[in-house]
């Protein structure tokens, strides 16, 4: 058979085949090598799926660029270790507490320029309030998640989490590493003391919360609630609503004292070489059509006032000024300044 190929030797044939194979595999990458690349962070799960399948490719196509998404948490230590003049990310997406820490370290620009991001004009005030660095593109409501098959009855207050009947089935978070846990600590100050900054009252309340099962991520709490390992826990609304239609015996409770805000914040790094594209990305993520698609996939409340969600989502998410006014924002700057002290104390409190 090799003779039929004339002067083509076996070695040449194999070399040509290998080159052709490598060329075929590499062709799309070579063709796109000149495209500018925007490096961003983003969550995994449903968020990651839709970003990869739909939202990301649409952005790449519209802005003729490549989107490189890092969904391997934690992001801030990686940004911290990279050069200030050539940061590892152009746009950082994370919760508000980490954005404040990044701002303190000078790793991100504290404000987004409304001239470069026109959609900023359409966001609810909370999204660009003095409690936010960058812009909050979505928010969740942190409240209580409960099992509906355990006969707990109507729950309407945060304080019911302290009821002895939930001993053994109460769920919370590792406060040093989890935004919900940190926000909840501030809520404890409000519930049992003079306000969010009353740490002594918060510590006493946390002591009384034991026994409690604590986890690091909300995903882990969702699984514990679904399995019945916990019956009442601190959780954000999307952690419950995303199982809508699956007949799960779980429900979200918005406590009468108010719900805490869990913001999804975008910021731009000062050393980014892709500033124009970075601003375009922030603007794109605030666009009503993109907001609607993401909100209806991951059950996050959109920050853009102009977004009209389908009735099912509109009924549950924070989509009107009245609903949004119930959100309680945490002063993360104040919190981060005391984080070491708080962490040491809560690590002691929750030690077995």
């Amino acid at each position, binding site marked *: 058979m090799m003779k039929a190929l004339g002067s083509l030797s076996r070695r040449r044939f194999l070399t040509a085949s290998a080159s052709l194979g490598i060329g075929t595999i590499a062709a799309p990458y070579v063709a796109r090598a000149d495209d500018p690349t925007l490096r961003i962070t983003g969550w995994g799960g449903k968020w990651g799926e839709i970003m990869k399948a739909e939202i990301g490719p649409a952005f790449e196509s519209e802005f003729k660029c490549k989107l490189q998404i890092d969904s391997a*948490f*934690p992001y*801030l*230590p990686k940004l*911290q*270790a*990279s*050069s*200030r003049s050539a940061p590892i990310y152009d746009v950082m997406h994370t919760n508000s507490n980490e954005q404040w*820490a990044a701002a303190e*370290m000078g790793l991100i620009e504290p404000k987004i320029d409304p001239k470069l991001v026109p959609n900023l004009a359409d966001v609810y005030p909370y999204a660009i309030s003095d409690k936010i660095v960058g812009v909050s593109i979505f928010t969740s409501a942190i409240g209580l998640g409960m099992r509906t098959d355990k006969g707990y009855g109507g729950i309407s207050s945060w304080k019911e989490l302290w009821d002895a009947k939930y001993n*053994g089935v109460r769920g919370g978070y*590792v406060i*040093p*590493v989890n935004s919900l846990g940190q926000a909840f600590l501030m809520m404890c100050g409000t519930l049992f003391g003079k306000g969010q900054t009353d740490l002594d009252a918060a510590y006493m309340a946390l002591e009384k919360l034991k026994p409690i*099962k*604590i*986890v*690091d991520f909300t995903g882990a709490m969702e699984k514990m609630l679904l*399995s*019945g*390992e916990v019956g009442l826990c601190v959780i954000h609304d999307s952690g419950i609503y995303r199982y809508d239609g699956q007949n799960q015996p779980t429900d979200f409770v918005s406590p009468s004292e108010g719900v805490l805000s869990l913001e999804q914040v975008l910021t731009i790094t000062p050393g980014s070489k892709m500033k124009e594209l970075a601003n375009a990305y922030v603007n794109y993520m605030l666009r009503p059509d993109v907001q609607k698609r993401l909100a209806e996939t991951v059950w996050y409340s959109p920050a853009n006032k102009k977004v009209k969600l389908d009735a099912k989502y509109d009924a549950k998410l924070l989509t009107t000024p009245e609903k949004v006014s119930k959100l309680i924002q945490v002063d993360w700057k104040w919190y981060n300044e005391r*984080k*070491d002290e708080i*962490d*040491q104390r809560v*690590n*002691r409190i*929750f*030690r*077995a």
Partner: protein
Amino acid sequence: MSSAAAQRPNGLALFILPGALLFALFFFLPIGLMALMSILTGNPVVAPKVAFTTRHYARMIGDPFYLEVIWTTIRIGLVTTLVALAIGYPLAHWMARIKSRAGHALLLMAVLAPMLTGIVVRTFAWMTLLSDRGVINQTLISLGLISQPLKLMYTETGIVVGLVHIYVPFMVLTLTGVIGRIDERLEQAAENLGASPLRAFLEVTLPLSLPGILAGSLLVFALAISAYVTPILLGGFQIMTLPILIYQQISANFNVGFAAALGIVLLMISLLLVVAYNRALGLVSGQHDLQ
């Protein structure tokens, strides 16, 4: 000829060079950098003004919480090592002395089989057994033996159970090689001279297998004190160990200097215990070269 030979590159040295370079690059350099970061106020690569400081170590010494965390880490490591040794030694002895090749192969497969599954998966498997709604508690409740679930998870015992399951194969494989090389005729000679099988084991086999015990224990101890996934999942963050604290300092407090100082302490604990263990075993066995 002798000068030409001296100038010729040594074949063995060239063979060792890649490994030595790799070791220097991926072992000594990171440890050196970690030691440096632990005595600096910031990262000199990205921060403009960085100075030497002892504050990270002072913080650790000044707060009893960190000393308690260090002791918890050591305690879990020691208990895991002892339990793994207690389970692993008889198994290794059996494997080393079994006459049937098929039997040896089956035992080896039984020891190696769990290692084919990832640590995370195995730890989750333990969670399904030990949790409040896990197999053990549900079975006991359904049999009417208990009314409330036993606290099997979120305890040091739970962590040790998970770690022992993961690290027993390391102990067994290390011990099997050593015990297998001990001449059985030495035990037979002891028995011929009137020693009971137990005394022959205690005075002949056990001392000769001490190098294996040493190697296996050090391996398991080092792995146990640096374990992260199992203490987190089975301890439910309520048992704080050094690796968890290090991760917390890097991922949530962004304090690389303090995390590096904690890392150096973890390393020092391992080194100190290696030295102490070597000395103790050297004294017990009379093998002074161990010292």
